[in-house]
């Protein structure tokens, strides 16, 4: 094993409760629903094109992965929650009282309104009311780990007996403010492609993303003969304590999150058959993530398939953790690994077994979905095939 810090005893097992994913759906620029999203990531077809939803103005980059037209976030989220609930084969009557945890990017309307109430709160409340879920959903804005943090909180609510079923939803639709902001930070790829872990990578591109999952205690799911898409076997989260926006170069924080997830799921690092990486396509963070994987997986790094599907659907910011969790489950369900698109050539700082073309299969039961964010926040979700 690595010389990472010892895992506290209370983190080493998930306890008697197991967490099942009984319903899920996702939307990306490829389309609405699992079929569209699955096809794009398994084929490795990037969804980037020139932005049409707004004028990119003086920005140096001009590409994003966007749905056509002008989708409305509350509508997209409502549709996603309805679809995930239906996939879980739950009756409408079971919705009342079910908690909703939701990850949202700050709404640009908030900066242009009266400031009387956060627009994200309005959006979240609208979704809860429309869907008949418990009012006053919690809104996460923990940057790029917002959705994965919501998933971990939902799982914790289940394993500690605070809830038997939780809906987690997340959404981001590319807007002019976010685009201009990331362009100003020189974070966007000027060549119009996201190339995670590849030599010549120039940065990230933003993408539309909406997803919803239903998490249930395994006992509750079994009691009603629910369909189980996968088990959320483990989870880990950590902070880098390093920088405002850069990850630790040695990946130590993310590695700790991975180790905690493996311990909690009682899985060995040799059993990981796929990693859906954070892989933003930026120089610094991809190298740090490769270091984290090397630290956490040790000699198994070279034989663990890795891809970042941000190369296909773009960076969906606060929604990333949920969209990518759904894709990780899809990889185990379909037996096909999503492609790391945009790849040009090896980078010696990213020595990983990248999935560079369609058709590869996972060789085991477990997969990881990783996310990292500004402020040094890291999450790792461990998924087990049903």
């Amino acid at each position: 094993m690595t010389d990472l810090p010892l895992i506290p005893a209370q983190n080493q097992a998930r306890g008697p409760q197991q967490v099942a994913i009984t319903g899920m759906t996702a939307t990306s620029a490829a389309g609405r629903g699992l079929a569209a999203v699955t096809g794009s990531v398994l084929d490795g077809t990037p969804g980037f094109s020139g932005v049409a939803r707004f004028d990119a103005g003086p920005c140096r980059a001009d590409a994003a992965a966007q749905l056509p037209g002008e989708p409305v976030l509350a509508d997209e989220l409502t549709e996603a929650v309805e679809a995930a609930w239906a996939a879980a084969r739950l009756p409408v009557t079971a919705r009342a009282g079910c908690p909703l945890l939701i990850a949202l990017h700050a709404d640009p309307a908030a900066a242009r309104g009266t400031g009387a109430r956060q627009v994200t709160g309005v959006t979240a409340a609208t979704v809860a009311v429309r869907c008949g879920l418990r009012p006053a959903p919690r809104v996460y804005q923990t940057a790029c780990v917002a959705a994965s943090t919501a998933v971990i909180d939902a799982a914790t609510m289940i394993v500690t007996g605070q809830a038997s079923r939780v809906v987690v939803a997340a959404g981001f639709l590319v807007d002019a403010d976010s685009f201009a902001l990331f362009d100003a930070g020189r974070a966007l790829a000027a060549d119009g492609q996201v190339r995670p872990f590849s030599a010549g990578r120039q940065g990230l591109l933003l993408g539309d993303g909406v997803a919803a999952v239903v998490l249930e205690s395994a006992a509750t799911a079994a009691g009603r003969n629910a369909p189980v898409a996968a088990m959320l076997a483990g989870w880990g989260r950590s902070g880098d304590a390093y920088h405002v926006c850069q990850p630790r170069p040695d990946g130590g924080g993310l590695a700790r999150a991975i180790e905690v997830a493996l311990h909690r799921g009682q899985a060995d690092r040799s059993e990981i058959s796929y990693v859906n990486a954070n892989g933003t396509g930026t120089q610094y963070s991809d190298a740090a993530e490769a270091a984290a994987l090397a630290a956490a997986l040790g000699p198994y790094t070279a034989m663990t398939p890795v891809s970042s599907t941000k190369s296909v659907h773009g960076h969906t910011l606060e929604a990333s953790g949920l969209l990518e969790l759904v894709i990780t489950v899809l990889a185990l369900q379909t037996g096909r690994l999503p492609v790391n698109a945009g790849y040009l050539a090896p980078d010696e700082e990213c020595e990983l077994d990248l999935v560079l073309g369609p058709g590869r299969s996972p060789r085991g039961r477990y997969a990881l979905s990783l996310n990292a964010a500004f402020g040094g926040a890291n999450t790792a979700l461990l998924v087990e095939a049903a």
Partner: protein
Amino acid sequence: MTLIPVAPCVEDLPHGEPAPAGMAVLARAEWPEAPGDELPAIPGFIVSSFSPLVAEVAGRCLRRYFGTAPADLARGERTGVVLATCTGDLATAAAIAAAVDEGRRVQPLLFFQSNPNAVVGWLTSRWGLSGPVVAVVPDGDPMADARDCASLLTAGGDADAVLIIVADQGRSPDEADHAVALLIGPRSWPEAGTTLDVPVT
């Protein structure tokens, strides 16, 4: 070793809150705490008082418990951070919106401070707090939401202690910024200022 005067825990968590068993408030701070209270600027953060507000209230709270930064390794790596803000960073968001609406380039530094996580990274890097980071935008009582999040961190074993920060900017020129920070932790932790068997640098 650095010896710091011992102070008692400030208070128990209020009744009616889902306080984890065995938890106590180890330190507390507010901003402002006195008339004329000022916010020190943070290098690299511009335009808005939001990040300085978070940094100052959190720094006060942490100094009251740990003394000088950083925290000792044993406690620092088991301390998470929950930031709850109803308003978010209004001034930064407004500056970005103004630039976009006027067809100007956005100031690059706004990219780095645009998410509430950023100032938390500034804080945790100085204090050596390497537990999880959570940021929420409550639609109701922000302290209640933050406490719930903190309870999940400790109940799930992801942290032993949590620095809770509730920070909101004034929504109009007549309304002042305000922030509260609480460090909650196990009753088994030493009282404020107690030196552990590790160097405090």
